[in-house]
């Protein structure tokens, strides 16, 4: 699963720790999502989308899509 989390975070000028505390997850979780080593649950994906004011499919894309 590809995602634009790193780009969106950079646009807001947030560090991984800032984003992690806004999402109430660990900094390692944010890093693992950005490096595409971990796929978030649906509820976390909704929280990420809500935080950036976008739809889930605008942030997360299936591989090859």
């Amino acid at each position, binding site marked *: 699963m590809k995602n634009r989390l790193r780009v969106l975070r950079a646009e807001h000028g947030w560090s991984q720790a800032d984003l992690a505390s806004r999402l109430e*997850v660990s900094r390692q979780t944010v890093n693992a999502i950005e490096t595409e080593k971990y796929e978030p649950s649906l509820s976390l994906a909704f929280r990420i989308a809500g935080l950036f004011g976008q739809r889930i499919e605008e942030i997360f894309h299936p591989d090859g899509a």
Partner: protein
Amino acid sequence: MSVRLPACRRLLGRLLLAAALIVAIGLGAKWLGQQAAVPLLLRQAAWLAPVLPAIWYFRLFGRVVRESGEMERQIYLEGAFFAFAAICVVSLGLAMAIRGGMLADVSLRKAGPLLWSAGITFWGVGTALSWRRYL
């Protein structure tokens, strides 16, 4: 912005206390069990006493897993599966080696604490391996 401490850090003190209680009560039970002057019923109760802090320990352990973040929870559970699989393989191997006469038979009294310690060690190894995959 306040950040809630991870469950493993918040509960670490209580986990260590529970582990220390298991050891202390176990040693106390061993001493009491050797006192012939103590009534048999009391000695038998003392031998079973370490089970109570062990139950507390694993309840806390479960709480650490439940209250962790979603990725950490996945890592802890992958570690637990690794430990379960490793204990199954090791105990099967030892059982077959005993049946084949390559090892002397051992009682549960001796093998139990070894398997218990190995389970925790394997969980630590499995969790570390799983962390490497995500970081």
